[in-house]
């Protein structure tokens, strides 16, 4: 919010860096400002356009659990508060059909289908990389069945389930149940069409379908419209039956009651990421506590090797989760998740306390997926000449901790390693301090011998980390195979 209003911050959203030249104190950056097809200066963010847009698209922000329109805002509180046309779905671009509805609706006259990508050149003294992380693709762990078992979800999907403004209004429905509701809706539609047809016949021939079918079966009525009617009615009966059954099922559905959180999915696992993602123990506890608040009867288990509650008040939070909220912690690396007939996930694990392999049936399993450097990290790393470390994040010095190996370029937050929000927020200020120093050019001038040593030292480390970079590349290549 504050960023959006600050007079000294120029926000280039929906943009990507394409090139960087120069050095500390004097960088020239080429930025591609991608076409939104909406004039940022005119759009007031009112949303009339999205209300009327006829094209419905799966919503990435709600991890595909909800729908948005082809003209959209990534999320309600996004900054800048401006809409964007998704050219991949908009009728004007996609099918070449003339739609143009939003341009007629918009009272601010902000829609511009002719808008093109723009290249913006920026002159800056320092660069801060705050490009964050991506989530691990849980499909890569076959034994947990994500993508195959409907009721195995990721932590991020679960966050959206818990959110009052989320796709389920804060109710934790089993995805397989949500699927039932969708099936029900389709069936209902089919039934309606079908019964309209049948009604038409009944009206025309002034006879109920039951009477008609008797007569038809006995051969009393045949041919033409009667055949059609009979066909229509015969396909209607099983539809009705199926609808009834599905409806019964939908009505008997309850919200997910037994939850299992599975920790370190893609983290601390030499097949994927050797590193610990640092924030997932805490967010799982948080999600577990909120789930219990929503449904105090629910049974919640967290399966993890260590519970890394290492921040201020975190251990206390964990203890309250265990003591007051009744969340159960099981020390174990889950071996496998299977499912039973009712699509309920079954967790297979070794109970290290009882020294036994056990299984537990739950309604939903939530995977705490790893924090990974995004694919753009590699691209930007090459573009900027900033090496990555062996984990694929931007490599930074021990002290000062946010300096990358290229002077004038700094990294903060998850861009240089997994960390939680307080840590990221603190680091954002730290990076700003380093950038300010770079702009003042103070260090380079004031320090004679000292900084020379430091430079030599960092160059030594650069060499080392290029090596890391190469290693990471190899690893990446290995993954591809």
């Amino acid at each position: 919010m504050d960023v959006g209003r600050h007079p000294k911050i120029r926000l280039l959203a929906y943009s990507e860096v394409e090139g960087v030249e120069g050095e500390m104190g004097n960088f020239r950056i080429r930025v591609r400002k991608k076409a939104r097809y909406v004039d940022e200066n005119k759009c007031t963010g009112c949303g009339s356009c999205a209300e009327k847009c006829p094209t419905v698209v799966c919503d990435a922000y709600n991890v595909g659990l909800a729908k948005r329109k082809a003209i959209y805002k990534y999320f309600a509180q996004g900054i800048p508060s401006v809409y964007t046309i998704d050219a991949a779905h908009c009728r004007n671009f996609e099918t070449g059909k003339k739609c143009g509805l939003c341009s007629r609706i918009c009272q601010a006259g902000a829609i511009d289908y002719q808008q093109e990508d723009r290249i913006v050149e920026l002159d800056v003294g320092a660069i801060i990389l705050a490009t964050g992380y991506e989530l691990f693709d849980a499909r890569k762990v076959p034994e947990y069945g994500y993508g195959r078992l409907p009721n195995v979800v990721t932590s991020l999907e679960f966050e959206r389930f818990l959110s009052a403004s989320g796709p389920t209004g804060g109710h934790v429905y089993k995805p397989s149940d949500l699927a039932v509701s969708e099936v029900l809706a389709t069936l209902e539609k089919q039934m309606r069409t079908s019964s309209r047809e049948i009604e038409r016949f009944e009206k025309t021939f002034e006879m109920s379908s039951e009477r008609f079918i008797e007569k038809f079966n006995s051969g009393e009525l045949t041919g033409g419209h009667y055949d059609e009617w009979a066909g229509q009615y015969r396909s209607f009966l099983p539809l009705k039956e199926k609808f009834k059954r599905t409806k019964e099922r939908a009505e008997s559905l309850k919200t997910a009651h037994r939850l299992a959180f599975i920790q370190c999915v893609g983290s601390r696992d030499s097949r994927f990421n050797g590193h610990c993602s640092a924030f997932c123990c805490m967010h799982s506890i948080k999600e577990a506590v909120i789930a219990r608040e929503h449904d105090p009867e629910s049974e919640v288990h967290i399966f993890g090797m260590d519970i890394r509650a290492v921040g201020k008040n975190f251990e206390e939070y964990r203890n309250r989760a265990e003591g007051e909220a009744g969340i159960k912690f099981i020390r174990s690396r889950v071996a496998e998740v299977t499912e039973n007939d009712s699509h309920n996930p079954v967790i297979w694990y070794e109970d290290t306390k009882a020294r036994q392999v056990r299984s537990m049936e739950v309604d939903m399993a939530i995977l705490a997926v790893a924090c990974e450097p995004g694919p753009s990290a590699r691209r930007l790393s090459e573009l900027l000449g900033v090496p990555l470390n062996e984990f694929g994040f931007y490599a930074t010095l021990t002290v000062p901790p946010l300096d990358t190996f290229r002077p004038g370029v700094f990294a903060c937050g998850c861009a240089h390693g997994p960390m939680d929000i307080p840590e990221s927020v603190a680091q954002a200020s730290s990076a700003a301090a380093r950038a300010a120093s770079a702009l003042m050019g103070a260090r380079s001038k004031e320090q004679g011998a000292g900084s020379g040593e430091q430079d030599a030292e960092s160059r030594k480390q650069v060499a080392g980390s290029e090596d890391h970079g190469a290693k990471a590349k190899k690893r990446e290549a290995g993954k591809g195979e």
Partner: protein
Amino acid sequence: MEQKPRSEKQAKGSEELKAGSEKQEAGNELSSCSPPPGKARTGVFVCHCGSNIAGLLDCEALAEYAAALPNVVYAKDNLYTCSASGIAQIQAAIREHGLTRVVVASCSPRTHMPLFKSACAEAGLNQYLFEMANIRDQCSWVHVQERDAARQKAMDLIRMAVAKAALLEPLEDIESSLVRKAMVLGAGVAGLSAASALADMGVEVLLVERETELGGLVRRLNRIGPSNEPAAEVLAMLLREVESASHVRLFPGTDLVGVSGVVGNYEISLKSKGGEETEETVGAIIVATGAVPFIPEGLFGFDGRKVITQIDLEERLRNGSPLEVKNIVMIQCVGARGPGRSYCSRICCLTAVKNALLIKSRDPNARVHILYRDIQMYGAENEKLLRDSRGAGVKFDIFDPAFPPVVKEGSVEFYQPLTGMTIETECDLAVLSTPLVAPEGSAATANLMRLPVDGNNFFMEAHAKLRPLDFATDGIFLAGTARFPATVREAVAQGLGAASRANTMLSKDRLVFSALVSYVTDRCDGCGLCLDVCPYHAITMEEFERDGRVFKKVRTDPILCKGCGVCEATCPKRGVLVHGFTPSQIRAQVDALLEALP
């Protein structure tokens, strides 16, 4: 049928209230702390916010409704009041209709109040004569299902805002000068980083350290995990930066003995061990007073020789002298994560794993065994160190705090849940990993500056997630293990961050504060009830003499005051009030609300 008597009763009730309030109003005028309503000329602007408001509410009708309210001489609805044309309309109306009050019924004051206020100011109307009714966030967004009730509520909100607006007083922002200097308290890695960053940004720094040597706890460390640089090198680098910076004045062996004043102008008194006193004025303060390792007196046979702490081990490793032991057992969470001290100290697992690996790399035949509860090697580099240590043959075993290990002569006995057996392992050196705890006297330091500490005497930040380096008190910032255990990298990052936070404020020409703060009226008789309730310590007691008699009365500091209103709510005599929320203004709103009741 039942409805009627009830509404009669309510009407009567509100009449009584009104009568009562009129009586009080008269009293108020006598005390001359609030001007009489006068004849305000109010303009009301009802915003559609595209379809955000107009999608549910008929804004044109609301504007018509507003036009008929007392004092309203102009009312209009517009598509976007915050757009350039919306703002121009407000300004034109101020001039053309001689408006003396402006009310906008739209979105949240949090985001849009500053814009509308400055629009008024530009058109020559005092910015404090502006009032806002939030008919979007508090109405159209939250009552989507109840159109009629929402319409009623929007009318209520507008009527209340108009009623209050009539009683608004013109005020001026409070401005104050500031001194572009900062004091950094504590010269550990956090304080050193903060000081050099501030100096880089052109701020003059007083770096105050209680000990005679700078560097804090890192002075006593061997290597800095997880990257394992020699601690002395890292420290030397930070010291060099501070010592070479021309703007940093060092005060080693010095205590902070007094602090007064407010943001921009804190008067501090320092006293050195030699008794030398220094008085200075600084604009900002950074607290980086660090933490110390807990000394486990009476735990696990701690004796400082064969049963030592990690900090003792660091010192032995630092000397480089051979350890002359073959079997080392480390016990984690000694004095942490239990009754009395419940937190996890974040850094001691790292310390243990780092030292275990260092011992192994010095002497591969040494046997190092770590007994832990959860091994907290969070993040990328730490977890790698853990893997490396396992690879190097460091042994790990979990223990259950209900059955803690027992340190015996030459061995340690522990229950191994994995096998269900009690194991005895040889041990000629037991190393206890103890948490970082707040140093003695940290509560007193906090008291000097009136800063809050938590149950463990760690300093408490303004907001755990969003303002981790700020205190609620303006102009004072926090970094390093004074806040909570942290690694060297984290402490340094926080030091830099706190410097940046301080500089955001110090780089201004002058400080501007809202005028919506408390003020004292003639009715104050010095009873002192409000002194303790003020969360910002903005109220002090004053004595003065009149006709040879001594009177008492409180005084409020407009810069310390945040306008929270607790004092006004506490004082039984209306001796202290808050601008913008005076009893008459609030009562006008309440009366306006009650009017609608049948």
